[in-house]
């Protein structure tokens, strides 16, 4: 009985902290329509700042707390709203997801850079004080946490319902433009809600840090707990959000207390939040199709079949020449780059073409690798079966959220990635705790590809094949449908397309591509383990895909090489390892609104060079192919209209579209529509 009370008290304590975090998340989301995936990461950074102030610099606890909660956190929140998140809410969900994922990665990079890994402790508040309730010791810290949660709840209620700015906050949820017309200032409302939101993330982080430890990743994952609680409140109701936080805290505490301490179930206690999240998502009501949102589209050019095949053959030949006589260690790097490029290719399909964001592509690769190693059938059949299993798992992840829209899909992929990372990949039937599995290299036509160079070339060949296949799909029925779905989901629905199953299929196909990459990777390395497919790896992957161009196969090639270079650069320059993450984050934030990325810059300069020097070069070397008749050689498919800026003139609806037209352009359309 007394242990039950102890678990209850512990659950109420952590639930109170989750509720505080969740209310901040809900506040920011409802007032600005930006779901901040970096919410937990901001709390993590603020906890480090608190440690820095109170322990390293030796400030009194209260002063440090005051500085963090009322100066540093609000300032950072304001800065983010002013310079990073502004206007994201009106754009497609995929852009705001990428930007906040970049924030998350940037926070982790900054924290590791400023506070390199070492042992740090933050003591609970009033550590030596406690009271005894029904025979159970309740620490002052726990009481303070619950009281603070109540104070936050009351404070937010008063702010939203009893003050002018609170009324403006609630009004800006409904229509920021209208609020502006009536003299309200949506920008200052947004800045205030980001300031408060960051402060609440900081408070939650600081309250939990004595419990979970000053860890870059553990506190970052707090966003899943907060998100689960916030979803419990349907991202609207603060009382329900608090109830959700408390429920989550209690379930977590009881599962820690009463689940068996060995076997798979013993680890379930670590993944209560993702499980809770899935349960809440399944219970969410169906979201309705929305009509009439003005968005524009810019898509990277789609090369013709012959052109994509010749570029593919070119890539193959160049790699073949480049890798000839290369040392095995370097060959492994090239193979890794090919793996990453293939995983990015799966993002080209899902994000670049489909407008959906997945934060678990590496996990799907891990599923493929696991299946390949477990099947122990190193031939084409085993390879494709492994990819098929990954595709099935991907479809299974999308299944609970098929009724819902992009944001929920993305967040449930994050929850899924954490679930796999912390629970299933480490289970005995998978890689085992800290263990690895052996995987043999692929056999083609009955002969095993033993040399590393040969194997790398097989991987490149697979990449080229999937890339060409993807472009064929893009130019055909599937590509047309994907564009149509992005342009107007409502029209697709009323024409008879069941988008829910289409989305599941798309997600499965993308996961299958990632799984294929993972399976090939397993063969390349010979041994694979859970450590190769940690949840966090999918985040820089997404960011680099966006930076290099998530709408083109070229972008995937460049992104794969870039991602392969990242750990190399980090180990070559350990003193600035964290800065690389910050750099990627900044680049992704800068380029998130143009997902064609660096690849498109290359296309543009290629066209420019061709126009400038093409004639002379062709005159000098007559065997070169003549210049195509127009810049886009895509027949009558105008979405391939190259870098020319096309955008919707009419009221198109693109829930997941990667590009927004600027406000001025929208205005111009309204004017021309007359």
């Amino acid at each position, binding site marked *: 009985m007394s242990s039950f009370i102890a678990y209850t008290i512990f659950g109420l304590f952590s639930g109170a902290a989750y509720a505080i975090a969740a209310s901040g998340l809900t506040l920011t989301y409802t007032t600005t329509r930006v779901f901040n995936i970096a919410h937990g990461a901001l709390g993590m950074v603020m906890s480090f700042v608190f440690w820095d102030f109170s322990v390293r610099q030796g400030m009194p606890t209260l002063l440090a707390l005051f500085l963090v909660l009322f100066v540093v956190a609000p300032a950072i929140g304001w800065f983010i709203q002013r310079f990073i998140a502004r206007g994201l809410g009106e754009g497609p969900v995929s852009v705001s997801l990428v930007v906040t994922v970049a924030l998350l990665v940037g926070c982790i990079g900054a924290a590791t850079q400023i506070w390199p890994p070492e042992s740090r402790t933050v003591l609970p508040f009033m550590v030596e004080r406690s009271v005894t309730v029904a025979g159970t010791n309740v620490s002052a810290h726990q009481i303070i946490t619950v009281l603070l949660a109540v104070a936050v709840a009351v404070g937010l209620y008063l702010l939203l319902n009893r003050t002018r700015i609170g009324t403006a906050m609630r009004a800006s949820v409904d229509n920021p433009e209208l609020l502006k017309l009536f003299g309200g200032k949506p920008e200052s409302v947004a800045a205030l809600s980001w300031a408060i939101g960051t402060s609440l993330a900081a408070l939650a982080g600081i309250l939990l840090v004595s419990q979970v430890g000053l860890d870059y990743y553990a506190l970052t994952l707090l966003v899943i707990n907060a998100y689960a609680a916030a979803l419990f409140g349907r991202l609207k109701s603060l009382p329900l959000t608090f109830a959700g936080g408390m429920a989550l805290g209690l379930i977590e505490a009881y599962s820690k207390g009463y689940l068996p301490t060995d076997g798979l179930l013993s680890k379930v206690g670590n993944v209560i939040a993702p499980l809770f999240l899935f349960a809440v998502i399944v219970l969410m009501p169906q979201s*309705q*199709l929305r*009509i*009439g949102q003005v968005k*524009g*589209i810019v*898509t990277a050019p789609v090369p013709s079949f012959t052109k994509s095949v010749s570029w593919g053959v070119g890539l193959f030949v160049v790699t073949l020449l480049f890798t000839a006589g290369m040392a095995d260690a370097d060959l492994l790097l090239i193979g890794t780059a090919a793996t990453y490029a293939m995983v990015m290719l799966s993002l080209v399909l899902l994000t670049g073409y489909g407008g959906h964001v997945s934060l678990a592509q590496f996990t799907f690769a891990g599923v493929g690798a696991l299946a390949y190693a477990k099947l122990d059938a190193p031939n084409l059949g085993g390879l494709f079966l492994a990819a098929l299993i990954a595709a099935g798992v991907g479809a299974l992840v999308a299944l609970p959220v098929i009724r819902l829209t992009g944001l929920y899909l993305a967040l449930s992929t994050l929850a899924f990635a954490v679930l796999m990372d912390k629970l299933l990949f480490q289970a005995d039937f998978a890689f085992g705790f800290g263990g690895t599995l052996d995987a043999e290299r692929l056999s083609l036509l009955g002969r095993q590809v033993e040399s590393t160079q040969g194997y790398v070339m097989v991987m490149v060949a697979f990449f080229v094949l999937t890339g060409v296949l993807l472009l064929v799909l893009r130019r055909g*029925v599937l590509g*047309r*449908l994907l*564009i*149509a779905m992005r*342009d*107007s989901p*409502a*029209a*697709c*629905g*009323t*024409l*008879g*397309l*069941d*988008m829910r199953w*289409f989305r599941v299929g798309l997600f499965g196909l993308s996961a299958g591509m990632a799984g294929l990459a993972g399976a090939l990777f397993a063969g390349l390395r010979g041994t694979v383990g859970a450590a190769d497919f940690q949840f966090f790896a999918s985040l820089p992957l997404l960011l680099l895909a966006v930076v290099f161009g998530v709408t083109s196969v070229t972008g995937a090639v460049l992104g794969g090489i870039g991602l392969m270079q990242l750990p190399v650069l980090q180990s070559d320059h350990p003193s600035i390892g964290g800065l690389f993450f910050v750099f990627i984050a900044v680049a992704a934030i800068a380029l998130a609104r143009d997902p064609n990325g660096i690849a498109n810059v290359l296309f543009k300069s290629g066209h420019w060079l061709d126009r400038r020097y093409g004639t002379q070069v062709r005159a000098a070397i007559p065997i070169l192919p003549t210049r195509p008749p127009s810049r886009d050689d895509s027949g*009558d*498919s*105008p*979405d391939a*209209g190259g870098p020319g800026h*096309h*955008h*919707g*003139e*009419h*009221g*198109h*609806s693109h829930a997941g579209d990667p590009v927004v037209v600027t406000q001025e352009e929208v205005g111009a359309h309204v004017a021309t*529509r*007359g």
Partner: protein
Amino acid sequence: MSLLEVEHVVVQFGGVTAVNEAAFAIDAGRVTGLIGPNGAGKTTCFNVISGLQRPTRGKVHFEGKNVTRMGVHRRAKRGMARTFQRLEAFGSLTVRDNVRVAHDISQGLGGIVRPSKSDVDALLERVGIAEYAAERADSIPTGTARLLELARCLAGDPKLLLLDEPSSGLDETETDAFGELLRDLAAEGRGILMVEHDMDLVMGVCDEIHVLDFGSIIASGDPAAVRANPLVQKAYLGYSDEGPAVPEGSIEETRTDLPVIDETTTLPVVDPAAVQEATR
């Protein structure tokens, strides 16, 4: 049995009732108009019929089957198609590819038969926008885009066409041609429900008209009857220009219990002092 029956549909947004007990029926082979002032609930009715909006109460029957809780795409598969007041053309595809996508969707993705270019072009020809076939749908004029939405609907050979302000953006000649097209489509046995503000088109093309005001049907009938209906005129103009707002011989003749007041009537004279006294 009518093709479509809307039964006592109520739609409430928070405290606002957008559609209030609307009930009407659409027959195959006829053009039916749904008219009413702005904000009368016409587009909300369309959304309820096509499944984009769940009604708070009431039912929608299509070909005798209750489709009230059926998903958008399944209604489409049963033969409903609609256009949108705020255009929903696939802006980054060509006009031709817009129709192709509609074909692909209606045939099912597993369908082996892809529409030939000439099939698609014949459809564009029919609605009169063949010259725009190769242009991006977001670069064509609004009126043309509306016709494109119609062509896209026709790619699925629908039994019921729901057209939301199809003629806005069309000039006079185009509107005339459009009216003829509607008659042709109805003659093929399709039911057509059209929300439209161009009264000449509505009166000229429709077999039947329902008038919606504040979410309720206030009048139904053929164009002549609706045009003459004083309630309709009041809804549109705020007053009725045919005869008094209150029809003759309603109150005076029915309320026989009231005293008749004329020159001979003597009214009681009130003494102000007495009133003061009484109220003190």
